[in-house]
Protein backbone atom coordinates (compact mmCIF):
# COMPACT_ATOMS: atom_id res chain seq x y z
CA UNK A 1 0.00 0.00 0.00
CA UNK A 2 2.72 2.45 0.98
CA UNK A 3 4.74 1.45 -2.08
CA UNK A 4 1.77 2.16 -4.28
CA UNK A 5 1.16 5.51 -2.56
CA UNK A 6 4.81 6.51 -2.93
CA UNK A 7 4.95 5.77 -6.63
CA UNK A 8 1.63 7.47 -7.25
CA UNK A 9 2.71 10.57 -5.39
CA UNK A 10 6.14 10.57 -6.97
CA UNK A 11 4.79 10.41 -10.50
CA UNK A 12 2.15 13.02 -9.81
CA UNK A 13 4.56 15.42 -8.11
CA UNK A 14 7.12 15.11 -10.88
CA UNK A 15 4.48 15.68 -13.52
CA UNK A 16 2.98 18.66 -11.75
CA UNK A 17 6.33 20.32 -11.17
CA UNK A 18 7.27 19.72 -14.80
CA UNK A 19 4.07 21.55 -15.75
CA UNK A 20 5.09 24.39 -13.44
CA UNK A 21 8.47 24.71 -15.11
CA UNK A 22 7.40 24.20 -18.70
CA UNK A 23 3.96 25.83 -18.88
CA UNK A 24 3.56 29.16 -20.60
CA UNK A 25 0.47 30.01 -18.58
CA UNK A 26 0.98 31.54 -15.14
CA UNK A 27 -2.26 30.15 -13.83
CA UNK A 28 -1.39 26.60 -14.80
CA UNK A 29 2.04 27.01 -13.26
CA UNK A 30 0.66 28.24 -9.95
CA UNK A 31 -2.09 25.63 -9.74
CA UNK A 32 0.23 22.75 -10.48
CA UNK A 33 2.81 24.05 -8.02
CA UNK A 34 0.21 24.28 -5.27
CA UNK A 35 -1.12 20.81 -6.06
CA UNK A 36 2.42 19.42 -6.04
CA UNK A 37 3.03 20.93 -2.62
CA UNK A 38 -0.15 19.33 -1.28
CA UNK A 39 1.09 15.99 -2.56
CA UNK A 40 4.52 16.56 -1.00
CA UNK A 41 2.76 17.05 2.33
CA UNK A 42 1.16 13.69 1.60
CA UNK A 43 4.67 12.20 1.32
CA UNK A 44 5.52 13.78 4.67
CA UNK A 45 2.52 12.04 6.21
CA UNK A 46 3.73 8.75 4.77
CA UNK A 47 7.16 9.40 6.30
CA UNK A 48 5.57 9.87 9.72
CA UNK A 49 6.40 13.57 9.88
CA UNK A 50 2.83 14.60 10.59
CA UNK A 51 3.63 18.01 11.99
CA UNK A 52 5.90 18.89 9.09
CA UNK A 53 3.19 17.81 6.68
CA UNK A 54 0.63 20.06 8.28
CA UNK A 55 3.07 22.96 8.42
CA UNK A 56 3.74 22.42 4.73
CA UNK A 57 0.00 22.47 4.12
CA UNK A 58 -0.66 25.60 6.15
CA UNK A 59 2.42 27.68 5.39
CA UNK A 60 3.27 26.69 1.84
CA UNK A 61 -0.11 25.94 0.39
CA UNK A 62 -2.19 28.24 2.55
CA UNK A 63 0.04 31.27 2.79
CA UNK A 64 3.03 31.33 0.44
CA UNK A 65 1.20 30.23 -2.68
CA UNK A 66 -1.74 32.48 -1.86
CA UNK A 67 0.65 35.42 -1.66
CA UNK A 68 2.02 34.42 -5.05
CA UNK A 69 -1.53 34.34 -6.34
CA UNK A 70 -1.95 37.85 -5.01
CA UNK A 71 1.08 38.97 -6.95
CA UNK A 72 -0.28 37.28 -10.07
CA UNK A 73 -3.15 39.70 -10.23
CA UNK A 74 -0.84 42.17 -11.96
CA UNK A 75 -0.92 40.10 -15.11
CA UNK A 76 -3.42 39.43 -17.79
CA UNK A 77 -3.91 35.75 -17.08
CA UNK A 78 -5.55 34.97 -20.39
CA UNK A 79 -2.31 35.78 -22.20
CA UNK A 80 0.72 33.52 -22.27
CA UNK A 81 4.04 34.49 -20.81
CA UNK A 82 6.49 35.48 -23.53
CA UNK A 83 9.99 34.27 -22.96
CA UNK A 84 13.00 34.18 -25.24
CA UNK A 85 15.15 31.09 -25.13
CA UNK A 86 18.53 31.30 -26.83
CA UNK A 87 19.85 27.86 -26.14
CA UNK A 88 17.27 25.38 -24.84
CA UNK A 89 19.57 22.36 -25.01
CA UNK A 90 22.17 23.93 -22.76
CA UNK A 91 19.54 24.31 -20.07
CA UNK A 92 18.60 20.66 -20.08
CA UNK A 93 22.21 19.64 -20.23
CA UNK A 94 22.99 21.76 -17.18
CA UNK A 95 19.92 20.55 -15.32
CA UNK A 96 20.61 16.91 -16.09
CA UNK A 97 24.26 17.21 -15.16
CA UNK A 98 23.50 18.80 -11.83
CA UNK A 99 20.85 16.21 -11.12
CA UNK A 100 23.38 13.47 -11.74
CA UNK A 101 25.87 15.18 -9.43
CA UNK A 102 23.21 15.46 -6.77
CA UNK A 103 22.34 11.79 -6.92
CA UNK A 104 26.00 10.93 -6.54
CA UNK A 105 26.27 13.35 -3.62
CA UNK A 106 23.27 11.86 -1.89
CA UNK A 107 24.38 8.34 -2.55
CA UNK A 108 27.86 8.80 -1.11
CA UNK A 109 26.97 8.83 2.61
CA UNK A 110 24.48 6.01 2.16
CA UNK A 111 27.16 3.83 0.66
CA UNK A 112 29.39 4.77 3.55
CA UNK A 113 26.87 3.65 6.20
CA UNK A 114 28.59 6.13 8.51
CA UNK A 115 25.41 7.90 9.60
CA UNK A 116 23.90 7.63 13.04
CA UNK A 117 21.01 9.41 14.74
CA UNK A 118 21.79 12.49 16.78
CA UNK A 119 18.38 13.17 18.27
CA UNK A 120 16.15 10.11 18.23
CA UNK A 121 12.53 10.89 19.07
CA UNK A 122 11.32 10.32 22.64
CA UNK A 123 9.81 6.93 23.32
CA UNK A 124 6.02 7.01 23.21
CA UNK A 125 5.74 10.64 22.17
CA UNK A 126 3.65 11.57 19.16
CA UNK A 127 5.35 13.36 16.32
CA UNK A 128 4.29 16.91 17.32
CA UNK A 129 5.43 16.29 20.90
CA UNK A 130 8.80 14.93 19.81
CA UNK A 131 9.26 17.83 17.40
CA UNK A 132 8.40 20.27 20.14
CA UNK A 133 10.86 18.69 22.56
CA UNK A 134 13.75 18.97 20.13
CA UNK A 135 12.75 22.35 18.73
CA UNK A 136 12.53 24.05 22.10
CA UNK A 137 15.64 22.54 23.64
CA UNK A 138 18.42 21.96 21.15
CA UNK A 139 17.16 24.31 18.44
CA UNK A 140 15.80 27.10 20.63
CA UNK A 141 18.25 29.72 19.43
CA UNK A 142 17.76 29.02 15.71
CA UNK A 143 14.04 29.06 16.36
CA UNK A 144 14.20 32.53 17.88
CA UNK A 145 16.49 33.74 15.12
CA UNK A 146 14.04 32.40 12.56
CA UNK A 147 11.19 34.25 14.28
CA UNK A 148 13.17 37.50 14.18
CA UNK A 149 13.93 36.83 10.53
CA UNK A 150 10.24 36.40 9.81
CA UNK A 151 9.46 39.64 11.60
CA UNK A 152 12.11 41.50 9.64
CA UNK A 153 10.82 39.98 6.40
CA UNK A 154 7.27 41.00 7.24
CA UNK A 155 8.25 44.58 7.96
CA UNK A 156 10.35 44.67 4.81
CA UNK A 157 7.48 43.33 2.75
CA UNK A 158 5.07 45.90 4.14
CA UNK A 159 7.47 48.77 3.53
CA UNK A 160 8.44 47.63 0.04
CA UNK A 161 4.94 46.95 -1.23
CA UNK A 162 3.10 49.54 0.78
CA UNK A 163 4.71 52.80 -0.27
CA UNK A 164 2.18 55.63 -0.30
CA UNK A 165 -0.36 53.37 1.34
CA UNK A 166 -1.02 55.82 4.15
CA UNK A 167 -3.21 57.88 1.81
CA UNK A 168 -6.61 56.25 1.83
CA UNK A 169 -8.99 57.89 -0.59
CA UNK A 170 -12.02 56.06 0.71
CA UNK A 171 -11.55 57.27 4.27
CA UNK A 172 -11.31 60.94 3.33
CA UNK A 173 -14.04 63.52 3.35
CA UNK A 174 -15.42 64.73 0.05
CA UNK A 175 -13.98 68.22 0.22
CA UNK A 176 -10.46 67.14 1.13
CA UNK A 177 -10.25 64.83 -1.85
CA UNK A 178 -8.16 66.13 -4.73
CA UNK A 179 -10.28 67.58 -7.49
CA UNK A 180 -10.48 64.74 -9.96
CA UNK A 181 -11.69 66.91 -12.83
CA UNK A 182 -8.67 69.17 -12.69
CA UNK A 183 -6.29 66.25 -12.53
CA UNK A 184 -7.99 64.52 -15.40
Amino acid sequence: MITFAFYLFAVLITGLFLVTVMSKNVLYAMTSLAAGMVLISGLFFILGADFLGVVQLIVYVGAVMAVYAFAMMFFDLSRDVKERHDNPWLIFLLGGGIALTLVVMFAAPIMGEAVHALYPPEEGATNPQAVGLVLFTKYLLPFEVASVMLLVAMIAGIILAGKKMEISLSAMDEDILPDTKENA
Partner: protein
Amino acid sequence: MEVTYLGVIIKAILILAIISAIAGFGTYIERKVLAFMQRRLGPMHVGLYGLLQIAADGIKLFTKEDFIPQNANKFIFMLAPIITAATAFIALSAVPVFPDFTIFGVFVPSIAADVNIGILFVLGMMAAGLYGPLLAGMSQANKWGLLGAARTAAQFISYEVVTGLSLLAPIMMVGSLSLIDFNHYNETHPWMVFMQPLAFVLFLIAGFAETNRTPFDLLENEAEIIAGYATEYSGMRWGMFFIGEYANMITVAVLASIIFLGGYTDLWFIPGWLAIILKIAFMFFLMLWVRASWPHVRPDQFMWLAWKVLMPLAVINVVITGIVIMV
Protein backbone atom coordinates in the same frame (compact mmCIF):
# COMPACT_ATOMS: atom_id res chain seq x y z
CA MET B 1 -8.77 -0.09 18.47
CA GLU B 2 -8.42 -1.77 15.17
CA VAL B 3 -8.42 0.19 11.94
CA THR B 4 -9.31 -1.67 8.78
CA TYR B 5 -9.18 -0.31 5.27
CA LEU B 6 -12.77 -1.39 4.69
CA GLY B 7 -13.94 0.46 7.78
CA VAL B 8 -12.15 3.62 6.72
CA ILE B 9 -13.63 3.45 3.24
CA ILE B 10 -17.13 2.87 4.59
CA LYS B 11 -16.74 5.77 6.96
CA ALA B 12 -15.44 8.03 4.21
CA ILE B 13 -18.43 7.20 2.04
CA LEU B 14 -20.78 7.73 4.98
CA ILE B 15 -19.26 11.12 5.75
CA LEU B 16 -19.52 12.12 2.11
CA ALA B 17 -23.15 11.03 1.86
CA ILE B 18 -24.34 12.37 5.18
CA ILE B 19 -22.58 15.69 4.98
CA SER B 20 -23.75 16.24 1.40
CA ALA B 21 -27.29 15.55 2.53
CA ILE B 22 -26.93 17.85 5.53
CA ALA B 23 -25.38 20.52 3.33
CA GLY B 24 -28.37 20.31 1.03
CA PHE B 25 -30.72 20.35 3.99
CA GLY B 26 -28.77 23.32 5.34
CA THR B 27 -29.86 25.46 2.42
CA TYR B 28 -33.48 24.66 3.27
CA ILE B 29 -32.93 25.43 6.95
CA GLU B 30 -31.17 28.65 6.08
CA ARG B 31 -33.98 29.85 3.86
CA LYS B 32 -36.57 28.93 6.46
CA VAL B 33 -34.79 30.56 9.38
CA LEU B 34 -34.02 33.72 7.44
CA ALA B 35 -37.65 33.85 6.36
CA PHE B 36 -38.94 33.44 9.90
CA MET B 37 -36.66 36.17 11.14
CA GLN B 38 -38.09 38.47 8.50
CA ARG B 39 -41.61 37.24 9.36
CA ARG B 40 -42.04 35.44 6.08
CA LEU B 41 -42.91 31.81 5.44
CA GLY B 42 -40.02 30.74 3.24
CA PRO B 43 -40.35 27.87 0.78
CA MET B 44 -43.78 26.30 1.25
CA HIS B 45 -45.02 24.75 -1.96
CA VAL B 46 -42.75 21.85 -2.94
CA GLY B 47 -43.61 19.04 -0.62
CA LEU B 48 -44.79 19.35 2.96
CA TYR B 49 -43.69 22.75 4.27
CA GLY B 50 -41.42 23.02 1.25
CA LEU B 51 -39.24 20.13 2.36
CA LEU B 52 -38.74 18.89 -1.19
CA GLN B 53 -37.41 22.29 -2.22
CA ILE B 54 -33.92 20.77 -1.94
CA ALA B 55 -34.79 18.18 -4.57
CA ALA B 56 -36.28 20.85 -6.80
CA ASP B 57 -33.16 22.98 -6.44
CA GLY B 58 -30.99 19.98 -7.21
CA ILE B 59 -32.93 19.19 -10.36
CA LYS B 60 -32.69 22.82 -11.40
CA LEU B 61 -28.94 22.96 -10.80
CA PHE B 62 -28.27 19.72 -12.64
CA THR B 63 -30.30 20.63 -15.69
CA LYS B 64 -29.06 24.20 -16.00
CA GLU B 65 -26.71 25.11 -18.80
CA ASP B 66 -23.11 24.64 -17.80
CA PHE B 67 -21.66 27.89 -19.01
CA ILE B 68 -17.95 28.53 -19.56
CA PRO B 69 -16.90 32.02 -20.66
CA GLN B 70 -14.93 32.32 -23.87
CA ASN B 71 -11.73 33.79 -22.48
CA ALA B 72 -11.72 31.72 -19.33
CA ASN B 73 -9.06 29.19 -18.59
CA LYS B 74 -11.33 26.20 -19.09
CA PHE B 75 -9.47 23.53 -17.17
CA ILE B 76 -8.95 25.63 -14.06
CA PHE B 77 -12.43 27.05 -14.33
CA MET B 78 -13.81 23.53 -14.16
CA LEU B 79 -11.39 22.47 -11.43
CA ALA B 80 -12.07 25.25 -8.93
CA PRO B 81 -15.49 24.18 -7.56
CA ILE B 82 -14.21 20.64 -7.10
CA ILE B 83 -11.36 21.95 -4.94
CA THR B 84 -13.78 23.79 -2.69
CA ALA B 85 -16.03 20.78 -2.19
CA ALA B 86 -13.18 18.28 -1.85
CA THR B 87 -11.16 20.21 0.74
CA ALA B 88 -14.27 20.78 2.81
CA PHE B 89 -14.94 17.03 2.96
CA ILE B 90 -11.29 16.11 3.53
CA ALA B 91 -11.22 18.47 6.51
CA LEU B 92 -14.18 16.61 7.99
CA SER B 93 -12.37 13.28 7.79
CA ALA B 94 -10.21 14.17 10.81
CA VAL B 95 -13.07 15.36 12.99
CA PRO B 96 -14.69 12.97 15.48
CA VAL B 97 -18.38 13.78 15.58
CA PHE B 98 -19.81 11.01 17.73
CA PRO B 99 -18.52 8.92 20.62
CA ASP B 100 -17.18 5.52 19.65
CA PHE B 101 -19.90 2.93 19.44
CA THR B 102 -20.41 -0.75 18.75
CA ILE B 103 -22.69 -1.84 15.96
CA PHE B 104 -23.37 -5.47 14.94
CA GLY B 105 -20.68 -6.49 17.37
CA VAL B 106 -18.06 -4.40 15.57
CA PHE B 107 -16.29 -1.67 17.48
CA VAL B 108 -16.44 1.53 15.46
CA PRO B 109 -14.24 4.47 16.31
CA SER B 110 -16.14 7.48 15.08
CA ILE B 111 -13.34 9.13 13.16
CA ALA B 112 -12.22 8.37 9.65
CA ALA B 113 -8.57 9.28 10.03
CA ASP B 114 -7.25 9.55 13.58
CA VAL B 115 -4.25 11.76 12.92
CA ASN B 116 -2.66 12.97 16.13
CA ILE B 117 -2.62 16.52 14.81
CA GLY B 118 -6.35 16.72 14.18
CA ILE B 119 -6.84 20.43 14.72
CA LEU B 120 -3.92 21.48 12.57
CA PHE B 121 -5.01 19.10 9.83
CA VAL B 122 -8.48 20.62 9.76
CA LEU B 123 -7.04 24.13 9.71
CA GLY B 124 -4.62 23.13 6.96
CA MET B 125 -7.36 21.68 4.80
CA MET B 126 -9.50 24.76 5.33
CA ALA B 127 -6.46 26.81 4.33
CA ALA B 128 -6.13 24.75 1.17
CA GLY B 129 -9.82 25.42 0.57
CA LEU B 130 -8.94 28.96 -0.35
CA TYR B 131 -7.82 27.73 -3.76
CA GLY B 132 -11.42 27.12 -4.80
CA PRO B 133 -12.57 30.74 -4.82
CA LEU B 134 -9.09 31.97 -5.70
CA LEU B 135 -8.67 29.92 -8.87
CA ALA B 136 -12.32 30.41 -9.76
CA GLY B 137 -11.92 34.17 -9.61
CA MET B 138 -8.63 34.24 -11.47
CA SER B 139 -9.58 31.85 -14.26
CA GLN B 140 -12.83 33.39 -15.38
CA ALA B 141 -11.51 36.48 -17.19
CA ASN B 142 -13.88 38.76 -15.39
CA LYS B 143 -12.92 41.76 -13.32
CA TRP B 144 -15.49 41.05 -10.62
CA GLY B 145 -14.13 37.54 -10.36
CA LEU B 146 -10.61 38.91 -10.05
CA LEU B 147 -11.71 41.28 -7.28
CA GLY B 148 -13.36 38.34 -5.54
CA ALA B 149 -10.15 36.34 -5.86
CA ALA B 150 -8.10 39.21 -4.43
CA ARG B 151 -10.45 39.46 -1.49
CA THR B 152 -10.30 35.69 -1.03
CA ALA B 153 -6.52 35.74 -0.73
CA ALA B 154 -6.50 38.69 1.65
CA GLN B 155 -9.34 37.44 3.81
CA PHE B 156 -8.24 33.83 4.16
CA ILE B 157 -4.58 34.59 4.84
CA SER B 158 -5.49 37.15 7.49
CA TYR B 159 -8.06 35.10 9.28
CA GLU B 160 -6.07 31.88 9.28
CA VAL B 161 -3.69 33.73 11.58
CA VAL B 162 -6.53 34.61 13.93
CA THR B 163 -7.96 31.08 13.90
CA GLY B 164 -4.60 29.51 14.65
CA LEU B 165 -3.71 31.93 17.42
CA SER B 166 -7.14 31.74 19.03
CA LEU B 167 -6.95 27.94 19.12
CA LEU B 168 -3.44 28.03 20.53
CA ALA B 169 -4.59 28.87 24.06
CA PRO B 170 -6.95 25.86 24.35
CA ILE B 171 -4.26 23.68 22.77
CA MET B 172 -1.83 24.82 25.45
CA MET B 173 -4.31 23.96 28.19
CA VAL B 174 -5.07 20.50 26.82
CA GLY B 175 -1.52 19.76 25.73
CA SER B 176 -2.51 17.88 22.60
CA LEU B 177 -3.52 18.54 19.05
CA SER B 178 -5.87 15.59 18.82
CA LEU B 179 -9.55 16.39 18.90
CA ILE B 180 -10.21 13.18 20.82
CA ASP B 181 -7.94 14.40 23.61
CA PHE B 182 -9.89 17.64 23.65
CA ASN B 183 -13.03 15.67 24.20
CA HIS B 184 -11.49 13.66 27.02
CA TYR B 185 -10.31 16.90 28.60
CA ASN B 186 -13.91 18.07 28.77
CA GLU B 187 -14.92 15.04 30.80
CA THR B 188 -12.91 16.16 33.80
CA HIS B 189 -12.94 19.93 33.40
CA PRO B 190 -15.60 22.57 32.86
CA TRP B 191 -16.30 23.54 29.29
CA MET B 192 -13.47 25.35 27.58
CA VAL B 193 -15.76 28.28 26.73
CA PHE B 194 -15.85 29.23 30.43
CA MET B 195 -12.09 29.11 30.74
CA GLN B 196 -11.28 30.69 27.38
CA PRO B 197 -14.20 32.98 26.53
CA LEU B 198 -12.01 35.35 24.52
CA ALA B 199 -10.60 32.49 22.46
CA PHE B 200 -14.13 31.31 21.78
CA VAL B 201 -15.23 34.71 20.51
CA LEU B 202 -12.12 35.06 18.37
CA PHE B 203 -12.56 31.57 16.94
CA LEU B 204 -16.18 32.31 16.10
CA ILE B 205 -15.32 35.55 14.32
CA ALA B 206 -12.49 33.90 12.39
CA GLY B 207 -14.71 30.92 11.64
CA PHE B 208 -17.33 33.19 10.12
CA ALA B 209 -14.61 34.77 8.02
CA GLU B 210 -13.16 31.47 6.86
CA THR B 211 -16.50 29.97 5.95
CA ASN B 212 -17.41 33.14 4.11
CA ARG B 213 -20.58 33.76 6.12
CA THR B 214 -22.52 36.93 6.04
CA PRO B 215 -21.01 39.66 8.12
CA PHE B 216 -17.80 38.79 6.32
CA ASP B 217 -18.90 37.36 2.98
CA LEU B 218 -16.88 39.87 1.05
CA LEU B 219 -15.78 37.32 -1.54
CA GLU B 220 -19.15 37.37 -3.23
CA ASN B 221 -20.64 40.52 -1.84
CA GLU B 222 -23.33 40.98 -4.43
CA ALA B 223 -23.89 44.60 -3.48
CA GLU B 224 -20.35 45.50 -4.41
CA ILE B 225 -18.85 42.96 -6.80
CA ILE B 226 -21.81 41.18 -8.47
CA ALA B 227 -21.09 37.71 -7.13
CA GLY B 228 -17.33 37.87 -6.73
CA TYR B 229 -15.63 34.63 -7.61
CA ALA B 230 -18.92 32.96 -8.52
CA THR B 231 -19.93 35.54 -11.12
CA GLU B 232 -19.56 33.33 -14.17
CA TYR B 233 -20.60 30.05 -12.58
CA SER B 234 -23.90 28.35 -13.12
CA GLY B 235 -25.51 25.01 -12.62
CA MET B 236 -23.88 22.33 -10.55
CA ARG B 237 -20.45 23.98 -10.58
CA TRP B 238 -22.01 26.87 -8.70
CA GLY B 239 -23.80 24.36 -6.52
CA MET B 240 -20.51 22.72 -5.58
CA PHE B 241 -19.23 25.98 -4.12
CA PHE B 242 -22.25 25.99 -1.89
CA ILE B 243 -21.93 22.38 -0.85
CA GLY B 244 -18.37 23.24 0.11
CA GLU B 245 -19.48 26.32 2.00
CA TYR B 246 -22.09 24.41 3.99
CA ALA B 247 -19.67 21.57 4.70
CA ASN B 248 -17.22 24.17 5.99
CA MET B 249 -19.94 25.63 8.16
CA ILE B 250 -20.56 22.20 9.62
CA THR B 251 -16.82 21.74 10.20
CA VAL B 252 -16.59 25.01 12.09
CA ALA B 253 -19.70 24.14 14.10
CA VAL B 254 -18.27 20.73 15.00
CA LEU B 255 -14.87 22.22 15.90
CA ALA B 256 -16.48 24.84 18.13
CA SER B 257 -18.67 22.20 19.77
CA ILE B 258 -15.79 19.83 20.48
CA ILE B 259 -13.17 22.35 21.52
CA PHE B 260 -15.24 24.90 23.40
CA LEU B 261 -18.65 23.45 24.18
CA GLY B 262 -17.83 20.14 25.78
CA GLY B 263 -17.88 17.84 22.78
CA TYR B 264 -19.74 14.56 23.01
CA THR B 265 -19.48 14.02 26.72
CA ASP B 266 -22.77 13.33 28.46
CA LEU B 267 -24.55 16.46 29.60
CA TRP B 268 -26.76 16.01 32.70
CA PHE B 269 -29.30 13.48 31.45
CA ILE B 270 -28.64 13.97 27.73
CA PRO B 271 -26.52 11.23 26.12
CA GLY B 272 -23.37 12.35 24.36
CA TRP B 273 -24.44 11.76 20.79
CA LEU B 274 -27.58 13.83 21.27
CA ALA B 275 -25.71 16.55 23.13
CA ILE B 276 -23.27 17.10 20.30
CA ILE B 277 -26.04 17.13 17.71
CA LEU B 278 -27.79 19.82 19.73
CA LYS B 279 -24.57 21.79 20.04
CA ILE B 280 -23.82 21.58 16.32
CA ALA B 281 -27.39 22.54 15.53
CA PHE B 282 -27.11 25.55 17.81
CA MET B 283 -23.85 26.67 16.20
CA PHE B 284 -25.41 26.28 12.75
CA PHE B 285 -28.42 28.26 13.87
CA LEU B 286 -26.13 30.94 15.26
CA MET B 287 -24.58 31.39 11.83
CA LEU B 288 -27.98 31.87 10.23
CA TRP B 289 -29.09 34.11 13.08
CA VAL B 290 -26.09 36.37 12.63
CA ARG B 291 -26.72 36.46 8.91
CA ALA B 292 -30.24 37.71 9.52
CA SER B 293 -29.13 40.33 12.03
CA TRP B 294 -25.94 42.05 11.05
CA PRO B 295 -24.87 43.98 7.98
CA HIS B 296 -21.74 43.51 5.92
CA VAL B 297 -18.51 45.18 6.87
CA ARG B 298 -16.31 47.11 4.49
CA PRO B 299 -13.19 45.26 3.26
CA ASP B 300 -10.79 47.79 4.78
CA GLN B 301 -12.63 47.59 8.12
CA PHE B 302 -12.38 43.86 7.85
CA MET B 303 -8.61 43.83 7.41
CA TRP B 304 -8.31 46.43 10.15
CA LEU B 305 -10.30 44.15 12.44
CA ALA B 306 -8.06 41.17 11.72
CA TRP B 307 -4.67 42.76 12.12
CA LYS B 308 -5.25 45.54 14.62
CA VAL B 309 -7.85 44.04 16.93
CA LEU B 310 -8.23 40.28 16.72
CA MET B 311 -4.59 39.29 16.27
CA PRO B 312 -3.27 41.36 19.21
CA LEU B 313 -6.13 40.09 21.36
CA ALA B 314 -5.31 36.50 20.42
CA VAL B 315 -1.62 37.02 21.20
CA ILE B 316 -2.44 38.60 24.57
CA ASN B 317 -4.76 35.68 25.30
CA VAL B 318 -2.00 33.21 24.51
CA VAL B 319 0.50 35.06 26.68
CA ILE B 320 -1.87 35.24 29.64
CA THR B 321 -2.74 31.56 29.29
CA GLY B 322 0.94 30.71 29.21
CA ILE B 323 1.63 32.71 32.35
CA VAL B 324 -1.31 31.11 34.17
CA ILE B 325 -0.23 27.61 33.16
CA MET B 326 3.36 28.30 34.19
CA VAL B 327 2.46 29.75 37.60
